[in-house]
């Protein structure tokens, strides 16, 4: 029986955030000793945390050394393809299985206003998590969480050039209405458009500005 140690969990949380927010850049080499010193956490835990992150596909361990996983335009296509289908499915299922509590949570999340980008990310993340929760399928929720982590890096990459937020918030509200009315098909469609718009915009920014090159 192996348990995740307290300090490993802590290290995992911090490092995951650093990678998904591009503070640790794609392709960057990871030095366990140095990270342990920076975070003031035991090396064994940092190592274990990086192993978990490799599981998340955020860290790569080629025969020698540890690196933050690279980002390619090709990845965007692959990640978005899966997430598009899963999120659509999630919205459809949520419309089927949502409880009154789920609706209270979703409504409350829609009403919130983010004060900065960090909060905006968190809020959007929470919203998609809450939909997956409303679908009442933990496998779906876990899988989505994984892809959310991967796609967050793309978002951060495009972040300085993005300005499409109000529409996203608007589609959130419509989505909650559809879920409330148990209209699965509509919910799926709104989510589909919402997600594919998002990736198209990201893709455009990344290609136009050749951000994949500069991210390294």
């Amino acid at each position, binding site marked *: *029986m192996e*348990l*995740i*140690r*307290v*300090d490993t969990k*802590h290290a995992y949380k911090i490092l995951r955030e650093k990678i998904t927010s591009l503070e640790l850049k794609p392709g960057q080499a990871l030095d366990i000793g140095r990270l342990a010193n920076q975070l*003031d*956490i*035991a*090396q*064994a*835990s940092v190592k274990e945390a990086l192993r978990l992150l490799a599981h998340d596909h955020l860290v790569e361990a080629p025969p020698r050394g540890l690196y933050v996983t690279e980002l390619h335009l090709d990845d965007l296509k692959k990640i978005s393809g899966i997430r598009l289908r899963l999120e659509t499915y999630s919205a459809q299922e949520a419309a089927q299985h949502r409880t009154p*509590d789920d609706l*209270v*949570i979703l*409504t*409350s*999340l829609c009403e*919130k206003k983010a004060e900065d980008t960090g909060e905006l990310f*968190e809020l959007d993340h*929470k919203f998609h*998590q*809450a939909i997956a*929760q409303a679908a009442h399928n933990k496998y779906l929720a876990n899988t989505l969480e994984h892809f959310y982590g991967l796609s967050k890096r793309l978002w951060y990459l495009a972040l300085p050039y993005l300005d499409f937020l109000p529409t996203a918030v608007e589609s959130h509200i419509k989505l909650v209405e559809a879920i409330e009315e148990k209209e699965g098909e509509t919910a799926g469609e709104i989510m589909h458009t919402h997600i594919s718009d998002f990736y198209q915009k990201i893709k455009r920014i990344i290609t136009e500005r050749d951000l994949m090159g500069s991210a390294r």
Partner: protein
Amino acid sequence: MNAHNESPKKEPLVLGIDTGGTYTDGVLLEYNTHKILATHKSLTTKRDFAIGIENVIAEIDIEDPSAIQMVSVSTTLATNAIAEGKGKRVALFLIGYDPDLIDSFQLSDRFATPNFHYISGGHDLHGHEKEELDLSGLLSKVDEIKRRVDAIAISSYFSPRNPEHEIRAQKAVSSVCELPIVLGHQLSTKLGSVERATTAALNASLLAVLQEFIIAVRRAMEHRGIEAPLMVVRGDGTLMNDEFAARTPVETIHSGPAASAIGGRFLSQKQNALVIDVGGTTTDFALIQDGKVTISEKGATAAGYQTAVKAADLLSIGLGGDSYITTDRKNEIVIGPERVVPLAYLSHQYPNVKQRLQALTKRSWPAPSPAELEYWFLQREIEDESGFSDREMDLIHLLESGPKPVKKLLEKMDVLDQSQLNIQDLWREEILGKSGFTPTDILHIEGLHKPWDMEASQASLTVFCNYLSMEKEAFLKFIWDEIAKKIASAVVHFLTEKKIPGDEVEEENLGKWFLTNSLFPHHPHLETSIQLRDSIVGIGAPAQVMIQQAADMLNTELILPDHYAVANATGAVAGSVMVTEEVLIYPHLSADKVDVIGYYVQSREERSEYEALESALENAKQQGEEKARSAALRSGADNPQVVVDVHQEGMDTYRVTAKAVGKPRLEV
């Protein structure tokens, strides 16, 4: 000390660490043979307990750190953090609590956080929903306060009977914010709603405190090359692994004294005894019955907050080896409760202290008062001058060249009394230290324990005696008598919960007279006595000298096991891993509350219903056993044994308690 390299087979080694009020003790022992291989004492750093522990881990004499298979820590961290308000900011949500009731009984200051909010909802005694849960009210409140707190605690009315509202609230709150959430029913299955809320709030405020502590200890272990499970002692003396401790920090309240009691039992091999642990700051009392530390029914109290946490039944008094001995305004001798650095130690560090003390003995008119023996000194350098007042900085500069007598300092600072200085922060942050005459100095004078400067102690004693015009022998006898009286009185107080009036005889009250005459015989003809049936097991460095006389007064023997000076740290590794799971059974009543339709079986996570009581009981026992066993395994127990008990609590209401106990699993 190095016997372990001779044994051909590698014995598993364990490292126990205890952080007391004055010292952090470490003991390295062979787990199976109980042989103590090395011990270490370092000063406790109250501003950051991890520093003292890091010192012990870094400096204890270990031949092969990789042979250590468990590190276990008992710590006053939680108790201290609560007492000093160092816990994190918590918002407490009270679901279904009656605000008027709380107000009318003035219970609101018992919640351990000023930030509490009423939400409608909750259940009744029978687990029926009392009122609908106002989830959107809860969420909008969370949104309002989430930026101002570090954690959230939720307690709903009668949640041990039905935790549904707490669980729904947790799901919703975790969907909208990242703050850690603590639920009342997970910490207490008792029905006291105020204690449950307090426990949840305190637990929430300690989460980050204990997490940081564990991370620091882990880091120190790694620096020394120790890769082993880390355990933390609970307030009842049992162990839990660090992962459990990080989730239920509130259970570490009283962890230190509980470990001492366990250590006393372990070293003395006594199944029944009164354990008295004399530390530098306090003396702690605990009772061992049938090999176990007795548990307080009321639940642990920390800084005046009554919790629902199981903890050893303890009494702690402000008397220890480093208790300050001085005279009060009426020129009467007082011992403690303040703790100071013994003059023998200060003089050992700064030899010119002795010269002045010896000079004081020669000044005959006016005889210097014991107040002139008090020294202040710098405990550590300050990193940053900003944040200190000019006055504080003046004082710090005055002390940079070494310790100074307070009298001189006050003259230089141009004030008459200490209270005019306004330097509380310097004490609290352990920048300033105080030194004075202590029982430890007397031990030096009597040659019983003399690692430091005996002559400084001797000179201080002379100052005392000159001032009070007492013979040295009479003075010393007076001090030891006082200490014995304090300890003997505390024993009676602890065992009977009755206060001892002191040695002033009350002629009118026969009971008091009898007790006083038994402890402090004064009647010329009538001899009365009181006898403690159990032996006293004395632990802690000054135990021998400080307890013997009290044991005589109580007509019992004093047992001082080998290594009694570090029994507390031994107790940190001698405990068992224990997990208790409780399952409640209560009736499902018909709508008119007359008939019993069925029986609910309520565990921490789930509720099920049965028609017949027998099947409900059977299921509850089975659930309890399985849950306790798997939690004990996760908590680091090796091959846990489970004992299941059923208590009837009222009409058709039963409590099934499953206790899983096992030795800690060592890494092999």
